[in-house]
């Protein structure tokens, strides 16, 4: 995908994050475009979580220039938080609230007006084809529904970027694919999707993929481009070639 300056929503230049003598992120440089599905891959401990926390405005880098939605991570972390959505495998839904109450709660957190909130609620239940479960407790829902609901809630305040941290862990293969449909749909509305996953077939659903090894970005391209560069049949092979690491890992 061509990077056009006006279309760049994440801009990272020489990002470094140190913890004492340990370099978790070593001069990362990359850009993510508007509406792109960007796969952020790497072995456990390669530094993905550290980088994601910085991009979400939760942690300050040691050095480097990092802009998210046009906001500077050093000075405007609150503005960043307002402009992004986040969902992880451990969804942050309140199990003993109903579906509608969860929606209302998060809409409130992000300061949506009552009218706006009502509209969002109706839209979302419609999109999820969930109107009938509006008043059910979240605890009673199947895992796949909870997951789709959590994703919708991450979108409630119209964020420009949504960070998805292993969003499909543990769900059945059909729901996993339905979930990716939701990701495509959101991306087609111009929302950028920043995704981590350990499912290598999902890496192939991304527009572009970066692979981190020991704190550095070792490769960044379209899945097809990476397969070609590494002479691999699929992303799993690409990943194995890049991320095979020394025997004693000291990472966290």
């Amino acid at each position, binding site marked *: 995908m061509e990077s056009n300056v006006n279309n760049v929503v994440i801009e990272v230049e020489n990002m470094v994050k140190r913890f004492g003598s340990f370099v978790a992120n070593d001069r990362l440089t990359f850009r993510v475009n508007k509406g792109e599905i960007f796969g952020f891959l*790497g*072995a*456990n*401990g*390669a530094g993905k979580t550290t980088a994601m926390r910085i991009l979400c405005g939760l942690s300050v880098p040691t050095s480097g220039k990092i802009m998210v939605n046009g906001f500077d991570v050093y000075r405007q972390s609150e503005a960043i938080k307002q402009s992004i959505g986040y969902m992880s*495998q451990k969804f942050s839904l309140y199990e003993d609230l109903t579906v509608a109450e969860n929606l209302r709660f998060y809409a409130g957190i992000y300061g949506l007006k009552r009218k706006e909130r009502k509209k969002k609620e109706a839209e979302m239940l419609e999109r999820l084809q969930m109107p009938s479960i509006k008043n059910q407790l979240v605890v009673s829902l*199947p*895992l796949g529904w909870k997951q789709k609901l959590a994703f919708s809630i991450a979108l409630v305040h119209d964020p420009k970027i949504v960070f998805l941290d*292993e969003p499909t*862990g*543990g*769900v*059945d*293969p*059909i*729901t996993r*694919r339905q979930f*990716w449909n939701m990701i*495509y749909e959101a991306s*087609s509305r111009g929302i950028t999707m920043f995704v981590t996953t*350990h*499912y*290598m*077939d999902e*890496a*192939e*659903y991304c527009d572009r993929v970066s692979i981190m090894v020991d704190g550095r970005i070792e490769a960044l391209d379209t*899945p*097809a481009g990476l397969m070609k560069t590494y002479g691999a049949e*699929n*992303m*799993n092979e690409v*990943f*194995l070639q890049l*991320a*095979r*690491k020394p*025997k*004693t*890992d*000291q*990472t*966290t």
Partner: protein
Amino acid sequence: MIRFENISKAFGTITAVDRVSFQVNRNECFGLIGPDGGGKTTLLRMLVTLLKPDSGSLTLDETDVVAGYRDIRNRVGYMPGRFSLYQDLTVEENLAFFASVFGTTIRENYAIIEPIYRQIEPFRKRRAGKLSGGMKQKLALSCALIHRPELLVLDEPTTGVDAVSRREFWEILSGLKEAGITIVVSTPYMDEASMCDRIALLQQGRILSIDTPGNMIKTHGKPIFQVKATERHSLISELSGWDRVASVYPFGQSLHVTPLDSSLGESDVRAFLRNKGYNDVWIERGTGGIEDIFMDLMVQQ
């Protein structure tokens, strides 16, 4: 060696395991495969005597697992899904503790854990809580093996683990199998099915199918077309809307298209897509794999 017969287990109103029967043979690597809520953990916890079945019978050789739990515990090593070692004890202290609980010593059984423990031994004075994910996993496995069990039970050892470490872990398991240990392991990753001798596909407390991966594909694997085109997203909706197609699922860069019946040929698919304006279509015939089978059986339920 292991016999689950009509085993059920409910928690309140939720039936976690619903009349499940299967057997595991000695020195086999048996995989329980399925998503969360399939019943994998409940089955494994019953096998290692941490839960009692509500009904049915569960035996290890001739020993009833419920009545003979003391005997079973000496024969079984268990690696739970959540890291459950003592975070404040060092690597070595954890291992020594598990050895002493089973009345043995690290030295006595060093040979069995050596290939795994050797990799974390340089850190033996480090507290377990300070280890990386991969090292914790190796320590947990060492602790599960220190009493030289004949059966090793592992609950989702590769969940949330990257593709490289996952492959390494399966290499370790295959080494243990060669050493004569029987293995029962659960995983949500369908692509790991091929690492097991036999597998049971589990969904909502029931077994969808049980066989060797090869036989399962022979019995249940349907002929499919693998289809690729640049415009993948619209391709999915076009093909899903076609009345000669039973299902369309994305698999990485390609789609798996299952025809409704055998009358649909490759040339028909080609013609259909050409009509819809796709000029760069790549099609190859194939047979559905374990994940295709899982989805197919799920829908049939």
